[in-house]
């Protein structure tokens, strides 16, 4: 995937018109931009940081997630797209990997936490949340100037997408199933006549 992202940048250059998230073009049926928009970048700096992060996250989590990794990225794409569409209605053009990589980060961290329960994992997660919160508060990305201005809320959208994915599907013996077993059982008890 890292090679793919590099190839896309080298072949198509910065913010290729046919690939970026373009709200107007999407309304006219160019739906592929919902996916491709995340894989193109506005300039060299933007591409460098995002692709480095992709390679690093891939190296960290590819072995653990395997075939689920592209699924995570697709799910996070949907989450980030939904935010862009309804949460940023004045934004016409968007590009960049970082939104969906936040989804990958949270899924990978939760996997790692289940596996090791090591405080480094927890601290990394807390650090990521704090960074996103500060960025949103500042209204811009940290210490980086890219050709297209940063939209910090997409990081939160990606992060939450990852959380939703884990909560809804991937927490065996916990999370969703735990909810089903405990809270749903209590609710059923309460609504059944004569349960008191």
């Amino acid at each position: 995937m890292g090679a793919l992202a590099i190839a896309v940048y080298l072949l198509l250059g910065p913010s290729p018109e046919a690939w970026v998230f373009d709200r107007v073009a999407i309304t006219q049926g160019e739906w592929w931009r919902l996916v491709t928009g995340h894989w193109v970048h506005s300039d060299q700096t933007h591409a460098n940081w995002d692709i480095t992060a992709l390679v690093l996250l891939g190296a960290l989590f590819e072995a653990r997630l395997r075939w689920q990794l592209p699924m995570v990225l697709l799910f996070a794409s949907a989450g980030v797209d939904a935010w862009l569409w309804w949460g940023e209605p004045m934004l016409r053009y968007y590009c960049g990997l970082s939104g969906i990589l936040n989804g990958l980060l949270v899924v990978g961290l939760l996997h790692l936490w289940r596996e090791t329960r090591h405080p480094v994992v927890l601290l990394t997660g807390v650090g990521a949340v704090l960074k996103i919160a500060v960025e949103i508060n500042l209204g811009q990305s940290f210490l980086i100037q890219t050709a297209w201005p940063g939209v910090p809320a997409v990081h939160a959208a990606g992060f939450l997408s990852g959380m939703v994915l884990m909560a809804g599907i991937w927490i065996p013996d916990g999370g969703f199933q735990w909810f089903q077993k405990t809270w749903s059982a209590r609710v059923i008890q309460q609504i059944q006549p004569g349960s008191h």
Partner: protein
Amino acid sequence: MNRQIGIKYNWLQLILLVVSLFAGSVYAAGLLTPSDGSVPPLEIRDHQVDVVIEDGYAITTLEQVFVNPHDRDLEAQYSFPLPAHGTVVELTVWIDGQPVTGEVLEREKARQLYEEEKAAGREAGITEKDSYKTFETRVSPVRARQDTRVRIVYLQPAEVDTGIGRYVYPLEEGGVDESRLAFWTANEQVTGNFSFNLRVKSAYPIEAVRTPNQPQAVIQSEADGEWTVQLGNRMSVAGDSPLMENQEGLEVDNSTPSGRNTPVFTLDKDLVIYWRHQAGLPGSVDLVAHKTADSDRGTFMMVVTPGDDLKPIHEGKDWVFVLDVSGSMRGKYATLVDGVQRALQKMQTGDRFRVVLFNNNSRELTPGFVNASPEMVARYSQALLAINPDNSTNLYAGLNQGLKALDADRTSALVLVTDGVANVGETRQRNFIELIKKKDIRMFTFVLGNSANRPLLEALAKASNGFAVNISNSDDIVGQLLAATSKVTHEALHGVEIRIDGIKTADITPGAIGSLYRGQQLVIFGHYWGEGMADVRLTGRISGEDKIYQTRFAFPAVATENPEVERLWAYASVEEALQEISNFGENADLKQAVTDLGVEYGLVTDYTAMVVVRDEIFDKHGIKRGNQARLAAEEAAGQQRAQRSAVSRRVDTQQPMYSSNRANHNGSGSFDIWTLLLLLPLAWFAWRHPYSREKSQ
């Protein structure tokens, strides 16, 4: 049963809407022939358009060949919609195989000369302006079974808003003039070669070029900031590929009347081209000047592109939609409904809206203001679809009703959507201005189509410190709406004034600037004397707070690359004078001023026309060939510009007027060093604890 009736009713509305769309599509640019059949129609064989957009203005060159397949000599009358703020500067007719360029005379004199020559059977041509609607070109004679070549050139300032440039080649006639439609039939088919070539060149990097309604256009990025768009019915993409025929979006019909094997192009849809500048460009001031070495006086065009320091507005607003549902809106009504529906959907919590409709009279669709809840938005969006546009246009009645029942405690805005020809009730511009000035309300006007009374609608918007947006049926309606929405949801710079010290300037236009909304550029024309450094201050108020932006730069001693700037200044001055005439009535001084500017600078205006006659006839009447000389200078400058890369016209690099970047609609998600630092301990940890599937299981 009721449900069945409802379904049938909805289908009926849908059919009516579709029918109305087709009904509107017959209005187009083309050769006019009397509808009574008294004169047989001519053909447009070739229609070739070349557009160059550079240094803040567009030059459009249209070359056509008219064919007379009949046995008698005929007059050709070609009509095309007025481009926004555009003026014809050249009419050339090929006489005896040689091009003869036209000269501008007072309109009546030009007509008289044309009619004399026509009556004498000698070659002649004339281009006139039909108020705000069309340019009309007549050429006589087109000899029996022969053809005639004609070239028309017009200039207009380039339009860039929120980082997106927009050029419209207007072809779709608005269908607002019913008497004209009854008298004339337009032949809008090009039976031979149709081509459209556009070149846009800018020192501010362009990231992308887009043609929303022409997917088969060939768009190429050339070196050094230049992009080209090519379109045509005989186009060869690779140079040796076959003709591109019958592709989606291109109106082609192989069953040509002349039996040639070339697809016919129909001149009935505007061609719209957008170019998107790179995001993150700084707010800037650009200066394009013209001053010859032997002249003390120069002409300048200053383009101010503000930095984005206008904050979003979050307080709830009252919106009044005043919508034109007259008969001339039929071809545009779908665009109107689509736009209004999208605008309603973008309303914020706390917003309220009213909808007023007008044709012969006005009426409210909503019972006063209603909250912009999803249910109300859905209800009135549906109700709008059920309207069938008909009758005339009583714009005054619509506006008057829209301005009633405003809540003084809430911020109000009026959105007028119209094709803008007031033909019933009050029609005097002055009274419209007085009406809008009675209320403290901003008016945002969406001008649909090419035949709208743009001068009236722009004057109304300006009088209320609002803005006017032109919309073509070929536009990206969502994109236009996004740009407009970002304006009304952000603060604006009001009471804008500009002051230039350190150098003598005069004849500045616009005389009163008004307001600047998010993403808007300010284009100022004027004269200057001498040369040297000047202090430029732009002042205004944002939310009641005074703002001053200033810079310092040099006006050049000699600048000869852009002689067209003189004509652009002159036409901007003409438009201001015409606005005064519309507001206060025609007076001899203003009429003379417009005529003098038109004749001196070779511009087709309401009081001047461009006429072509044989060279010896020009000599016989003692008509100076001022326009011929001006065109030669412009052509030489154009060739010089074509040879070189785009040149930066930015003048405030030493002392930038703005500290922030320009407004844009772009955004990106990017990681940074902090994210990677955050991941390093994790990487170390993962390296120390390699993943083992067995262990995991």
